[in-house]
């Protein structure tokens, strides 16, 4: 009996600690339109170009290999825009510094970080070696499958499949940057990162949530 309990405890530590769970949900409200502000020309004072960034070459060469399993043509078109947005965001200095400077619990770290530093996590994104296809190919390899469920779950995956499931309840109304954020969140699970299944205080600071939000928020600039 003791042996069995020990093994079960070890297995629980090894397993992905996420479950499909319900949560609060409400319709997303689109902010009301503001009056468009015209871009005004500045004076001709000499302006130096932005300082050369330290974005690594792998961030610039990051590729995507996304396979659509049951998407309609319209859904594919929308998803393609989100995939392109992911590449644009990964290639920015802002993404690099956001990932590297992420804070949680008083230190530069993520929750549920598998013992990895922020720099190691950033590198793992660029290496893009999914758990089920552990080749560092600098390419997001992923399948996408649509489904509908009247729940608060935007999407999900699990450890034994190479694709992600996307809930059309949200996909159909999401802006491109939100689709990108969800895509990246689920892909980070394929890289082996997890988070608490319950809505704990630390869950937003896990790699899938935190970095997914970065993709979404930086992606705003590319809408």
């Amino acid at each position, binding site marked *: 009996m003791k042996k*069995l309990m020990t093994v*079960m405890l070890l*297995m629980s530590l090894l*397993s*992905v*600690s*996420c479950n*499909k*769970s319900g*949560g609060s*949900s*409400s319709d997303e409200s*689109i*902010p009301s*339109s*503001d*009056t*468009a*502000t015209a*871009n*005004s*020309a*500045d004076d001709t004072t000499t*302006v130096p*170009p*932005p300082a050369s*960034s330290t974005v690594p070459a792998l961030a*610039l060469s990051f590729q995507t290999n996304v396979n659509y399993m049951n998407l309609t043509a319209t859904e594919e078109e929308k998803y393609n825009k989100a995939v*392109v947005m992911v*590449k*644009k965001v990964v*290639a*920015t*200095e*802002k993404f690099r510094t956001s990932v590297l400077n992420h804070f949680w619990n008083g230190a530069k770290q993520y929750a549920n970080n598998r013992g990895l530093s922020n720099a190691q996590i950033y590198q793992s994104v660029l290496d893009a070696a999914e758990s089920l296809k552990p080749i560092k190919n600098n390419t997001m390899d992923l399948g996408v499958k649509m489904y509908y469920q009247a729940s*608060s*779950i*935007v*999407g*999900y*995956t*699990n*450890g*034994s499949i190479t694709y992600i499931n996307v809930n059309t309840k*949200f996909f159909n109304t999401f*802006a491109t*940057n939100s689709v990108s*954020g969800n895509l990246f969140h*689920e892909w980070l*699970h394929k890289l082996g990162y997890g*988070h608490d299944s319950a*809505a704990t205080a630390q869950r937003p600071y896990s790699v*899938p949530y935190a970095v*997914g*939000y970065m993709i*979404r928020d930086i992606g*705003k*600039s*590319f*809408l």
Partner: protein
Amino acid sequence: MKNIILFAFFLLAMNSFASIEYTPSEDFQPTPAEIQNNRSCFKELKVLGCSNPGEDIEQFRSCMNNVYASLNKHCRNLMDDLYK
């Protein structure tokens, strides 16, 4: 019986789901004005000969650096925010 429990536990562990729940928030959606302003920057860069950053990021960044001084303040701020 012990083996069955072990097997069932292992099977469940492998199939646990990693999901994302919807969190309602307006913070991550820009206003239509912000979208228009941002798009105008990339349109201007395209007119100035810079590629789409999603197609050829290296050419885009190199070109953007070359034409940076001719961009308006909003666009310079946007480029600084993203690429500096």
